[in-house]
């Protein structure tokens, strides 16, 4: 799970600035850049959070059981 989200984070984290730079250089249209950002910025946010979140394994429960 973490491996996949890390890969997604790196990928989307590269695509977002890359599309902005390419659009600034005139290599792609502005609309392509926006499409890339609309798709990959949310994925970047979510995958970043998923990467650095606390692990799902045994955690530190403040209180156990009723």
């Amino acid at each position, binding site marked *: 799970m973490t491996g996949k989200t890390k890969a997604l984070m790196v990928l989307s984290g590269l695509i977002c600035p890359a599309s902005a730079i390419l659009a600034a250089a005139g290599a792609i249209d*502005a609309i392509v850049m926006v499409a890339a*950002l609309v798709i990959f*910025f*949310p*994925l970047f*946010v979510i995958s970043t959070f998923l990467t650095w979140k606390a692990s799902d394994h045994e955690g530190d429960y403040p209180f156990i059981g009723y």
Partner: protein
Amino acid sequence: MISFLLYLLLAVFIGLLYHGIHRKVIARIQTRPGPPVWQEFLHTLKFSFKQTWIPMTASQLMFVAIVVIMIAIWVGGLYVLLTGGSLLILFAIFLLHKITEHGLGLSSGSPYGKFGAIRSVISAASEIPLFATVGAIYMVTGSLMISDITAYEAANGPLLLSVIALPMAIAMYVIVLSKVPYNPFGIIEAKEIVSGNKTEHFGVWRAGLETGFAIKTFVLLAAFVTLFIGALPLWLLLIAMLIVLLTMSFICALTPMLSPYDAVTIQALIIGFVVVYVVIAGVIL
């Protein structure tokens, strides 16, 4: 183009900061100390570090996808606003936001989320026609492109000061008001239904939602300022947005939450007045 990416990051940052200021001002008006203005920022970070999973009862794919869609539409909205695109698309994105609110509540299977989702449908009935009155701006300025509207304002002075456009400004103000936290129309996240449609989105999902909401607040406030005051340099825009937000903080601090159907009725009455005004203005002009 790179500036748009920077604007995006700025929107997240400023949106969260303004949420914090909003909370602080409400607290001070109610003579409480209130949290620090960075609270919402810390809040989002804290949520993002938490253990996270998907509730067993949820519609798994939708539970996650709706968070992504929520951020995505406001990224699009920010672009439309910054490039002076069509006001109609901005209007569409506001409506799509209502849909994601609805989906947010429905996807979890929690009864509280469901209540929030149902209330989101109820409030959609009044918020959306209210926004449609903004279409009356077309009557005044003759265009729906935000760049044309700001050009009109540069030539003829701010729309806020013109008598004809004032009711539209009020309608738009009510729209933005009904989207800031703790507002009197915010029946979908009222505390009697825990957190309404956000109840089951915890941890990373909530952090993602807060990010989306931050961009949303930025876009809506900036849209209000741009539409009714005009194109301003960034620092003036931020100050104007803050002033608009502070007026809303006063309203939020001093008014109780309305009951669901009354919130709809009050907003419907506001539409009624605006529509009558527009018709009369249209006949006179």
